[in-house]
């Protein structure tokens, strides 16, 4: 396998989070009764004209700025001609020669631990276009049912250079792009509903020779399918070539049930789209002022926020990457730190990534739905860093906050009497009592049995109902036993 190099480029269709369609005033909401969101423009009734949605253009500008691309001052809509029943006009309005976003790049982090590395994936372009309707092939006595609710939904098609060299890099790119489009609020990222779909162009070649012939895997709507489809395709291409065969350029579909890709039966001329500028639409002009306004309104981008988390809060690169995977997580973390204070940043990161994440995952909740607010978690962490709570008791307080037993950690600590005992005198008293009552353990420890020490610690903690500061208990016990 080592003597083959894999080359992958991705085309991603990102459904833009607008209220109305790209060229009509019909709603883009998912799940409506068939054809109740299909206006005369979407149906291509005679005499209708498309009117471009400002919101969709705004999304494209946001994206262009977020990937450091050129936002074109002038771009052109073109007709892509083909016949299919879910495309009533007989052409899709897209962009061809002059796309709205040109160039740009996305930073990706691949692998974990020692094998982790970072890489930049260059973008070729991103262009605005309309989605087609939906064909339903079942249950209509040999006919196909057409629902045009999706027809005209705004899409941004984002095209990379053939920069990726493994399925892991392709998945890392897709994940980074998915996080980014959600972060800048241009896409809901719902892959089940088809808001984010990838096509993968895959080829293999010997290093130092020209790129091989590529095959395009269409419509991958999960990261797992993307990985499986690419890996199957790579194996298939290498086997075919090693057995003396050749690769024909083709469009293939991935079947999740079998884990295989298979060629779509398409006529040779299927790709003769005869693009030409759409005479119904004038060139899209985007002024420098509009770009500047959009730039000013853009949130701090994930990469910048990640670097700030590392610099300001002393987080590791791994923690900072995890916390900036989604805007909501980053915002929650910072809101918690605002209450806990900077010394609480690292514990806040751990609570968000471990305890809170596990609890949310168990209940199937998003971080925005968390019963424990960021301020409450920050308050809890503040009581850990000032030694009011041990970690074990803090977990109890967290559960109590989750269950709504109090409005703040302080209230729960007060109500349930959970304050950690740090008063040396009080702990000393408990230690003396335990030593007096457990002569056998003391003798064992003095005979060299370390286990007996742990038993004594356990006894003290039990007497303190878990509230004694464990470090102080340890120290005092050692002192007394040594004396």
């Amino acid at each position, binding site marked *: 396998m080592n003597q083959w190099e894999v080359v992958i480029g991705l085309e991603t269709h990102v459904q833009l989070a*607008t*209220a*109305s369609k790209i060229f*009509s*005033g*019909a*709603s883009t909401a998912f799940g*409506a*009764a*068939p*054809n*109740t*969101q*299909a*206006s*005369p423009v979407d*149906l291509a*009734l005679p005499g209708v004209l498309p*009117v*471009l*949605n*400002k*919101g*969709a*253009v705004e999304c494209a500008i946001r994206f262009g700025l977020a990937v450091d691309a050129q936002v074109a001052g*002038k771009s*052109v809509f073109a007709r892509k*001609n083909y*016949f*299919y*029943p879910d495309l009533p006009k007989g052409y899709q309005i897209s962009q061809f020669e*002059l796309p709205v976003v040109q160039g740009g790049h996305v930073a990706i982090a691949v692998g974990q631990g020692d094998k982790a590395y970072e890489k930049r994936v260059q973008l070729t372009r991103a262009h605005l276009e309309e989605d087609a309707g939906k*064909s*339903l*092939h079942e249950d*209509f006595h*040999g*006919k*196909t*049912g*057409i*629902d*045009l609710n999706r027809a005209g939904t705004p899409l941004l098609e984002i095209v990379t250079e053939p920069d990726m060299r493994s399925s892991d890099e392709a998945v890392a790119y897709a994940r980074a792009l998915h996080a980014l489009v959600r972060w800048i609020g241009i896409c809901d990222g719902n892959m089940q509903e088809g808001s984010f779909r990838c096509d993968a162009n895959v080829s293999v070649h010997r290093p130092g020779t020209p790129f091989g012939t590529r095959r395009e895997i269409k419509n991958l709507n999960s990261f797992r399918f993307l990985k499986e489809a690419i890996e199957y395709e790579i194996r298939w291409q290498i086997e075919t070539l090693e057995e003396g065969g050749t690769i024909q350029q083709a469009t293939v579909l991935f079947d999740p049930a079998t884990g295989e890709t298979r060629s*779509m*039966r*398409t006529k040779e*001329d299927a790709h*003769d789209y*005869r693009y030409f*500028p759409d*005479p119904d*639409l*004038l*060139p*899209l*002009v985007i002024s420098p002022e509009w770009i500047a306004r959009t730039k000013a309104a853009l949130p701090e981008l994930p990469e910048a926020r990640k670097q700030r988390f590392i610099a300001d809060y002393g987080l590791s690169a791994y923690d900072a990457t995890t916390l900036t995977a989604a805007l909501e997580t980053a915002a929650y973390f910072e809101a918690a730190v605002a209450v806990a204070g900077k010394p609480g940043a690292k514990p806040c990161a751990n609570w968000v990534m471990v305890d809170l994440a596990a609890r949310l995952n168990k209940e199937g909740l998003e971080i925005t739905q968390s019963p424990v607010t960021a301020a409450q978690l920050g308050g809890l962490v503040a009581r850990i860093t000032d030694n009011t709570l041990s970690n074990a008791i803090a977990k109890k307080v967290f559960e109590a906050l989750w269950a709504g037993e109090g409005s703040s950690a302080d209230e729960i600590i007060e109500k349930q009497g959970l304050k950690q005992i740090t008063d040396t005198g009080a702990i000393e008293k408990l230690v003396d009592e335990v030593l007096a009552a457990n002569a056998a353990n003391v003798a064992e420890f003095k005979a060299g049995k370390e286990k007996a020490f742990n038993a004594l610690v356990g006894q003290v903690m039990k007497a303190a109902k878990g509230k004694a500061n464990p470090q102080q208990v340890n120290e005092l016990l050692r002192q007394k036993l040594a004396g």
Partner: protein
Amino acid sequence: MSLTLPEVQRIAYLARIEVSEAEAETSRQHLNGIFSLIEAMQAADTQGVEPMAHAQDVGQRLREDRVSHLDPDGVQRARFQAIAPETEAGLYLVPKVIE
């Protein structure tokens, strides 16, 4: 530049227009007539002139992102579908298409 008869027939096929041999020859002559106009225009010096995508040199006017087509009860759908050859459960029915 001029078109051959097979080229005209291919263009007709891609556009799903049925043309007879005689019609294809007539169309070929018409299209070649248009090409000769284009050739005449290409004689003009356009060096340094930015190509236009539209005859009007203005920008596209944009629409605010607002929903203006509302049809929750399918009243308009019923009107649109009155002229469709076949519908069922709100869907337009067409001959089976499977790729």
